[in-house]
């Protein structure tokens, strides 16, 4: 949403002079609405103090270019009265905050999802105001979003490349060795033309002129030429191998670092990104870096050395001739500089198009059953074809730019040669240089421009690698939104008492949970009931700490979840999800996923308890049978029982069952249900199920509606109460689909 004002930096705090407050008046909360009443971008401050609500008149900061309009209006002020209320009307793209006195609308403000969190926090502080009047709240800084802001974009992609190159630090001595080898091989390759000079001037020309010269005088020069070639080859080999070794390691480290960092990121990172794009970043972008480092960078470096040395040699032989031959060189440099930016953008587009294409693959291959079931093979092929065409188009655009480089440099080198021959002829006639010198010059200058040409090719290669490096750094710069505290409190095995205190959670501007208060006793089984979208799964995700609540807190045994490390908490957590995921490996490995050190006896015990033991024994290799990516040849119920065994083996203090039986038939459900009944004994359990019969063992049923708890009680109590639960239950009982009555 580009707009004249949206790029203006958001001030963190309420400016001190924004409102004229009375002495001792304390700001409790402040936020900025980012739209004016016409829905145009315009920021204006709202502040809540212990005495009043203040609002900047929206018009004063409106207007194009961020220029304050000349009209000076005084801020609005509404004294806090008992009937003053704030309400939020949330719409998909816009939110509206309304201030009322009783039924009378005093004012309203519009805002975009960008500031939703701040506005909500403002309203929450306002709502909790009566209780807190005696206990002044810490002044809240206006902008401290719960979700960490997108990391600062790195200033330039070449910076990203340098950052990736810093992975070379552990290998700096090997790099140094490679550089020395490169230096040596470059010097060795400069020797031959230098030897041809005396060979022509002192042997060949005197001989042709009838002088007394024997072939033996030529031999040392020929031997020197041969030796230089061999030494240059050997050193070049060593250089290439050494630097290839290093670059392989740098790319490998970049891969590991990126992957490990990605593993540390929170779930919402993965839910907003496409699998194919992430795979492309870790696999092909790092490989591209490796190629760049091992081939282009080495080549560039030795070419640079060669160019410099050649220039030095040329000037030492004949400064005049050297000056003449190097005239086209600055032109080449200027050319390079002029198209760099265009190349960089072009290659970045190419990488994005490539990632899009990978995403199509990562999308359709796992979803192949859906594709086939709906006979959409040709459409998916078309989709891939389109993505592929975009790759071609993006590459074509940039290919036009970089491909004209090489021939152009060739043209310059031809011109350079022409200049040499021309000025060489003149200088020889003048007697200021010898034929040998001219020959050496021609040999040097041919090499010189060949190297310049390949150095110029380095420019697109660098931009390409820089685009890849930037895509890697983007992942490295993401911060987990659910982060470990700096100084985590130790958490032993919890007894499992969970306390949810005024939990609210929003996805963007949509409020999914609106103030959940629930106290779960250790060992209690809670069944979460409610229509789709009522917030059941979100609540379970919050208890798993896959997300943090937008406001409110969760404590386990009285310890706030935000104060303990994720790993120490999740170790005591077991999850059985709707879609059991089996990793590639044996059944035993899959069951022991949460505790790889488990003994075979423990694995068997868990499988027995999960009702999986007998079907496993009948597989050809028993517990050593391999299951593939999508669970191999196991049925849905069998996979589910393996995932229950997995949860059982970690012996969790807190168990989350998220629709664990909804994807299997009634008979299998009965088997799984028995397994689950054993699983929940003695653990705090949060179970979500659409089929209410599944929850018959729950100690309490919690009925959610629109993100609020509307009923709590036992099955029969809720039936008797005749509320939402009773209605849901009646619907399911008359519906033939759920087959197992409680």
């Amino acid at each position, binding site marked *: 949403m580009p707009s004249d004002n949206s790029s203006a930096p958001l001030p963190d705090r309420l400016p001190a002079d924004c409102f004229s407050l009375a002495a001792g008046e304390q700001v409790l909360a402040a936020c900025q609405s980012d739209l004016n009443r016409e829905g145009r971008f315009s920021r204006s401050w709202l502040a809540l103090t212990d005495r009043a609500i203040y609002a900047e008149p929206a018009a004063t900061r409106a207007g194009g270019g961020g220029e304050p309009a000349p009209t000076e209006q005084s801020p609005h002020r509404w004294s806090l009265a008992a009937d003053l209320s704030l309400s939020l009307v949330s719409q998909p793209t816009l939110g509206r905050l309304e201030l009322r006195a009783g039924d009378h609308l005093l004012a309203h403000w519009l805002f975009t999802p960008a500031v939703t969190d701040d506005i909500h926090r403002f309203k929450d502080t306002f709502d909790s105001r009566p209780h807190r009047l005696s206990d002044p709240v810490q002044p809240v800084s206006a902008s401290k979003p719960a979700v960490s802001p997108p990391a600062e974009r790195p200033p330039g992609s070449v910076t990203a490349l340098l950052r990736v190159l810093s992975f070379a630090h552990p290998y700096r001595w090997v790099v140094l060795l490679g550089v020395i080898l490169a230096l040596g091989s470059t010097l060795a390759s400069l020797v031959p033309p230098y030897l041809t000079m005396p060979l022509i001037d002192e042997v060949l020309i005197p001989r042709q002129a009838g002088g007394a010269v024997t072939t033996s005088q030529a031999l040392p020069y020929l031997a020197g030429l041969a030796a230089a070639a061999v030494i240059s080859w050997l050193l070049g080999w060593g250089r290439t191998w050494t630097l290839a070794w290093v670059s392989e390691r740098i790319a490998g480290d970049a891969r590991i670092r990126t992957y490990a960092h990605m593993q540390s990121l929170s779930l919402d990172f993965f839910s907003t990104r496409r699998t194919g794009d992430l795979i492309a970043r870790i696999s092909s972008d790092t490989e591209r870096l490796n190629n760049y480092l091992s081939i282009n960078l080495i080549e560039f470096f030795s070419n640079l050395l060669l160019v410099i040395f050649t220039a030095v040699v040329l000037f030492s032989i004949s400064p005049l001739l050297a000056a003449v031959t190097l005239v086209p060189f600055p032109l080449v440099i200027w050319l390079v500089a002029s198209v760099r930016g265009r190349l960089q953008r072009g290659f970045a587009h190419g990488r994005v198009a490539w990632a899009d294409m990978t995403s199509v693959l990562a999308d359709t291959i796992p979803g192949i059953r859906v594709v086939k079931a709906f006979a959409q093979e040709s459409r998916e092929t078309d989709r891939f074809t389109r993505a592929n065409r975009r790759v071609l188009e993006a590459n074509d655009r940039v290919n036009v730019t970089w491909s004209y480089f090489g021939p152009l440099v060739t043209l310059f080198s031809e011109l350079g040669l022409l200049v040499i021959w021309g000025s060489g002829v003149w200088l020889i006639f003048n007697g200021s240089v010898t034929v040998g010198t001219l020959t050496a010059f021609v040999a040097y200058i041919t090499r010189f421009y060949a190297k310049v040409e390949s150095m110029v090719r380095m420019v697109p290669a660098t931009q390409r690698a820089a685009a890849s490096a930037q895509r890697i750094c983007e992942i490295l710069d993401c911060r987990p939104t659910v982060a470990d505290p700096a100084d985590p409190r130790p958490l032993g095995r919890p007894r499992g008492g969970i306390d949810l205190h005024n939990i609210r959670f929003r996805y963007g501007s949509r409020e999914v949970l609106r103030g959940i208060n629930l106290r779960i006793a250790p060992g209690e089984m809670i069944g979460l009931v409610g229509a789709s979208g009522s917030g059941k799964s979100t609540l379970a995700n919050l208890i798993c700490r896959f997300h943090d609540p937008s406001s409110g807190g969760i404590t386990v045994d009285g310890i706030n979840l935000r104060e303990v490390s994720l790993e120490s908490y999740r170790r005591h957590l077991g999850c059985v999800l709707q879609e059991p995921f089996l990793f590639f490996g044996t059944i035993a490995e899959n069951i022991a996923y949460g505790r790889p050190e488990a003994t*075979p*006896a423990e694995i068997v*015990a868990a499988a027995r308890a999960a009702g999986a033991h*007998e079907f496993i*024994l009948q597989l050809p*290799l028993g517990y050593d049978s391999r299951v*593939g990516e999508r669970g191999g040849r196991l049925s849905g119920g069998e996979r589910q029982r393996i995932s229950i065994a997995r949860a059982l083996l970690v012996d969790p203090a807190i168990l989350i069952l998220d629709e664990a039986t909804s994807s299997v038939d009634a008979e299998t459900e009965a088997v799984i249900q028995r397994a689950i009944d054993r699983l929940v004994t003695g653990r705090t359990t949060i179970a979500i199920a659409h089929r209410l019969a599944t929850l018959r063992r729950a100690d309490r049923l919690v009925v959610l509606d629109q993100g609020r708890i509307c009923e709590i009680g036992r099955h029969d109590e809720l039936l008797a109460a005749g509320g939402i639960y009773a209605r849901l239950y009646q619907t399911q009982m008359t519906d033939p689909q759920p087959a197992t009555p409680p």
Partner: protein
Amino acid sequence: MPPDQSAATARPLLDTASCCFDELDDGGLVLITADGCRHDRVLVVRAFPLSVPRGPVAILDAEGRELLWAESLAAFGPRARQQLTDQLAAGEFLPQIEAIVSATRQSPIAWEVLTDRGRHRFQLATADAVVRHPDGSATVTDAAGICYLIPAVRQLDRRSRRLIERSS
């Protein structure tokens, strides 16, 4: 803390010492409990045939229900142990590859191998046909789903190892 086994199992399992076995003419095995109850054609399986080959053994009845569980064959008397070993040998089919004689270059890759059960030619499975294990062994799966074992890849001859490299 592993889950409690006794609570976990629906039916009580039989005691190793109280059972004896009888063989049928066609090689089937009958389990006879202490109280004389006969279970015809029981299935004797190893739970971890690859990772703990001498470890747990289970006996299932003809319907696949578990009757008996033993941590190893050593839990049985000498006679029963022999009967069970024979039964396992008859039921288990895990040829050990001793050498790979030849391998086709193009997919589908076919191997000709020498196994402890003789010379054999088969087509490799399309994905993950050769899986190496941390202990240095490897399992090979063919297109028909039959599993072969290579007890120690490093002890194969040079040629065989090269053919494995090429195919996996």
